[in-house]
């Protein structure tokens, strides 16, 4: 494969991950953390990044060992690889980002049963060389991060009038600058922070992506690739 073809393939992977095939808005995978951890933009961002690290690392590992893993036992092997990566991320976050770790809590170990990493391993990493697989895992994860941050931002702005509140506490002091208050404190619509808001905002944002895709002259995806 020539260099030009290579970089062409890579840019498709990046575009697919970030927008065209976005894990949340197009494929509707990984819904649990998407709803549960988007009560603020900061939470969404942290959750997304943790998932992206796990996805990149496990895609890379699966691609490296793709010829050794037999088809019959591949699912358990994938789950074990993801679980090992999740354990590493879990311990690392507990040590270095303890505040964020406490907020995300249950949903860090639950990355294991997030359908998005597993779907990418099965659909991409199992058949591709290591580097494209790493790229695919990482950018699918970053697309997931963007989606979670956007949902979190919408819910946070409408719900409590702030944006990236507590970012300095959760991500480190250098993030102090992005903390914002956009609306007065008493204007928040609490419903947006509560569970129903998660469903409604996500639904409306899927519509928003369809509108943007239509404007750009692309076909809109009528149904997501449903997995359980």
């Amino acid at each position: 494969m020539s260099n030009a073809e290579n970089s062409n393939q890579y840019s498709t992977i990046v575009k697919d991950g970030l927008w065209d095939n976005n894990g949340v808005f197009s494929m509707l995978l990984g819904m649990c953390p998407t709803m549960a951890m988007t009560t603020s933009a900061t939470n969404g961002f942290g959750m997304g990044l943790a998932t992206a690290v796990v996805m990149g690392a496990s895609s890379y590992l699966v691609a490296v060992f793709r010829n050794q893993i037999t088809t019959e036992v591949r699912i358990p092997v994938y789950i074990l690889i993801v679980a090992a990566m999740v354990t590493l991320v879990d311990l690392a976050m507990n040590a270095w980002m303890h505040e964020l770790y406490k907020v995300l809590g249950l949903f860090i170990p639950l990355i294991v049963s997030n359908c998005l990493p597993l779907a990418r391993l099965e659909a991409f990493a199992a058949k591709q060389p290591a580097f494209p697989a790493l790229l695919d895992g990482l950018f699918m994860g970053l697309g997931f991060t963007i989606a979670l941050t956007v949902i979190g931002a919408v819910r946070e702005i409408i719900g409590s009038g702030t944006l990236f509140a507590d970012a300095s506490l959760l991500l480190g002091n250098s993030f102090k600058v992005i903390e914002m208050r956009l609306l007065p404190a008493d204007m928040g619509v609490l419903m947006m922070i509560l569970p129903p808001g998660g469903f409604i905002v996500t639904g409306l944002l899927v519509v928003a992506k369809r509108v943007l895709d239509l404007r750009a002259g692309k076909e809109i995806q009528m149904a997501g690739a449903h997995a359980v």
Partner: protein
Amino acid sequence: MKEFAMIMISAALVNNVILARFLGLCSFMGVTTRIDTAAGMGFATTFVITVSSMADWAVQTYLLDAYGLGFLRTVTFILVIASAVQFTEMTIKKVSPELFQMLGIYLPLITTNCAVLGVALLLVEGRMSFINATLFAFASSLGYSLVMVIFAGLRERLALVQVPRLFAGPPIAFIVAGMLAMAFMGFSGIAAS
């Protein structure tokens, strides 16, 4: 007795697995297009959640806690769950071949249903006794099945109405789910302990 009733109501309705804790949303969106599949899925998942939670409780207490291996929790739990799913699959195949046909591909995928792992982690983190943990797991999965069936009913009706093209499919399902979540918030009044 009153304590048990509180655990049941709180786990099944007030802190509903799907609508309040956001666990198991993939199956909530994926297999709720027909009431009978949703009920079958609810039944299978109830079985898996109850069995694997009991096993996970034992693993946590007698293996991980006893030998200080807490950091291996994620890996061991997912293994226990995968075995429980395999066991359920074999049982259903034997007991009810029709249900097995109907659930098809969705059965093995219960492993990656985060409700299963989520409930197990919740009851371990809550330091519950064995009986409370079993009740909690069973009631949580009943709540899961209840919401699955209700939502499947809503979607069967939804399939018959005209929805604007942009909202067709998942978006309108999300918005309906949001309204269902609002309705379930009404139960939070019962939570007073």
